[in-house]
Each structure stands twice: as structure tokens, then as C-alpha cells.
């Protein structure tokens, strides 16, 4: 309930509510952006753009269309993909060794400060290859169910059930 009120205040241009939402989601959004742009500085730049865009376009969000977090995710993926396609990016691009969200988590030295760090590293450690692909496409790359099915050459329904199994393991690890 509290989240809904926050979002409403945010849409009414309440800076405090905006800050709370930023604190809640900025790490996640940064992580998703960085999985796409693979460059900390550029990801930081895109992150700011994403939250500024969310503030300016807050009217465009309605709960009917989906979760607020999902809305932010969409803005972030689109902004990151736009960035990757832009000319300036191609010049600045560095080849960092994070092809995958998996590597980002496994090589994350700052994770220990976060809650559930051990659980999540353990989860990633024994995550099946099938789950890695699915999670990468669905949550980080923003593929639709259909696109995912076509890319992995599995039936539409399998995307749903297999993904649920992958995420239920994650929930056990995070105890949510």
C-alpha cells in the first residue's frame, strides 16, 4: 500500500517521494543498464537520464499498464539500447569483461555489504544454463515472451513455466 502512495506523490511532483523511489530502485536500474552498456561511466550517465525522464513523464505511468518498477525497467532498457546504438558510444566503448549479469554478480566485490549477498551468490553459482539464458533475455534484455520463445526455440508455454521455476529458486535464496 505504501508503495502506491509513494508513486502517487511522485506523480504529483513530490521530490521526497521521488527520492524514496530512487533509493529503492537505482541499484537495480544501474545493474540492468550496465548489463547492456557494459561501462560504468556511461551507465551512470544513462541512469540519471532514466530517472529524469521518469520524473518528467511521470503522468504516463498508470498501474493498469504494469508495475512501477517494470515501467522504470522499460525506460532503462530503451535508454541503454539507444545509447549502445549511438555514435558516441561506439567511440567510448571499452571491452569490459561482463558479457552477462551472471559475471557481474559473481565478480561483485561490493555485494557483501548488501542484504542476502550470500544467498544470491549461492543461487547464481548453481543456476542452470537454461535459467541464465532465460533470465538474461527476460529481465535484462527485455525480450517479450514471444521473442524469448523464438530466440531459444522453445514453445511459448515453456518460457512461462521454465522461467517460473528459475525465479522460484531465486526467491528461496532471497527468502521472498
Amino acid at each position, binding site marked *: 500500500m505504501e508503495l502506491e502512495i509513494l508513486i502517487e506523490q511522485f506523480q*504529483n*511532483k*513530490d*521530490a*521526497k517521494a*521521488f527520492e524514496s523511489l*530512487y*533509493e*529503492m*530502485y*537505482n*541499484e*537495480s536500474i*544501474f*545493474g*540492468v543498464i*550496465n*548489463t547492456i552498456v557494459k561501462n560504468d561511466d556511461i551507465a*551512470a550517465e544513462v541512469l*540519471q537520464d532514466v*530517472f*529524469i525522464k521518469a*520524473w518528467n513523464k511521470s503522468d504516463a505511468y498508470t*498501474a*493498469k*499498464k*504494469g*508495475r512501477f*518498477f*517494470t*515501467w522504470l*525497467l522499460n525506460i532503462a532498457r530503451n535508454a541503454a539500447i539507444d545509447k549502445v546504438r549511438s555514435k558516441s558510444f561506439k567511440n567510448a566503448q571499452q571491452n569490459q569483461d561482463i558479457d552477462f*549479469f551472471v559475471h*557481474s*554478480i559473481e565478480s*561483485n*566485490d*561490493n*555485494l557483501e555489504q*548488501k542484504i*542476502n549477498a550470500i544467498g*544470491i551468490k549461492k543461487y547464481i553459482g548453481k543456476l542452470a544454463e537454461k535459467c541464465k539464458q532465460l*533470465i538474461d533475455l*527476460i*529481465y535484462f534484455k*527485455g*525480450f*517479450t*515472451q514471444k521473442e*524469448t520463445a523464438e530466440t531459444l526455440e522453445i514453445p511459448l508455454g515453456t*518460457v*512461462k*513455466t521454465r*522461467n*517460473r521455476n528459475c*525465479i522460484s529458486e*531465486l*526467491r528461496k535464496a*532471497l527468502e*521472498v
Partner: protein
Amino acid sequence: MDSKEYIASGILELYVAGALSEQENEQVHAMMQQYPEVKQEVLSIEAAIVGLTAATDHRKTTIPFSSIQEKLQLSENDTKETPVIPIKPKPSLFSYVGWAAAIVFAAGLVFTMMLKNDVESQIEIVRAEREALKEQIYQANSDLTAANELLNVLRTKDIISVPLGGQAVSPDSYAKVYWDKSANNVYLDLQGLPVPPPGKVYQVWSLKLDPLTPTSLGVIEDFTTDTDKVFDLQNVNESEAFGITLEPAGGSESPTMEQLYTLGVVASNP
């Protein structure tokens, strides 16, 4: 669909990812309003995904909110935008016409949007139908290939056709044997035989007539599941007649003559 099945379907995980269509999103939203357990599930999934994605953030320090605030030039107390006082122009006939035009335009726009949504869902349906039809065509094509292969065999010059007539135990039964002597093969068309009772199978025999010596050619195991009722067996014998008997599952050493369903003699001069 009840809420338990709905949760188990995995749709909510895709909902949080933003991987669903607009209609599906609205459907999930409605389910969340209706069932608290669906809503709770979405919140848990979201918490998991927020946790997972946040774990990929490896920065030592995050960008402080103040830097975004600076960019937006928001002050701490900035809670609402200053209301703009509207200037009311004198209404003129011209402005009424303008409004009327705008309303007509807007109505047209709404209508077009509705039409578009309708067409989009029709396209989805047509697409699904097309997939189903493709599958049917594929099926029909492979059936046709099988039928053509069979027809080619039956048309071979040297094939010997032997009609088998119904016998005392089942006068209405009939069958056909097509014997390809050069390939040592017989094709059996068993369309005219009744479905064997449970625990029983048809056994096919090659017969020598003088003296009467039966040789088993084999047992038809999959009679009930076979759709065209055409079977093929090896036959290396100098057969003079063919017979089909009903035998216990697995077949018998020698034919049970009381259960002879059909019998036919090979024409003496092929």
C-alpha cells in the same frame, strides 16, 4: 482459472519483467485487484527481481539523489508545481467552431484507435489459425506421401493380389494380400476385419495345400492403433494360400482353425 493455477502458470514472473502484451498486463492487474494472493505473489516476485538486478550493481558508491535533483533544479520543498493562472479569452464563434472541430477530431481518433485494437486482435487470431492450418497441411502431406508410396507398391507389375474371404467364424470378414515375390514382402489390407477382442491378436499364415502346412508370417500387434489398417510382413515361402486366424496375444505355434477369419488361395498361374 482459479488464482492458484494462475499463479502457477508463470504469467506473473513475466508480468514483472514487462514481457507481456498490453492486454495481458491489464488482465494481470485485474487479477491482482480481485485476489490478494495474486497481488502478494507479484510483490514477492518483484522483490526477488529487484534483489537480483541490484546484485549486478558493483559500484562502491551510488550516485547521490542530490545530483539528479540538481539537474532537475528541484528544491527540498518543491512538492507541487506553481499553478498557472489561466487567461480566459472572450469566447467567439470562431473558438466554438474550433472546439467542435477538435471534438470531432478526437472522436475520430478514438474510433480509429478502437478499430486498430480490434484489427490487431484479429491479426493475432488469424496468425494462430494460420499456424494450425500449417500443421494440418504438414500432416496431410505426410499422409499423402504414405498413401502414394503404398499405391506405387500395389501398382508394381509383378505383385500378386490374393483376396481372402470370410470363413465360418466371421462370414462378413475379408482381407487382401498383395505379395511382392521378388522382394519377399506381403502387404495386408485388413480393413475388412473386426477389431480383435482384448488379449487377442490376428496372426497371418502362409499355407502349402498338399499336404496342408501352415507357416506363421507374423502377428499384427498394432491393429487397433493403425489408422489405415495396412501392414507389411516378410514372406520367403512358396505360398499357395494365405489365412488369418485370431490367436491369444503373442501368437501361436500353429493356427487355431476354429478361429480362422479369412482364407484365400493364390491363383495357380500368376
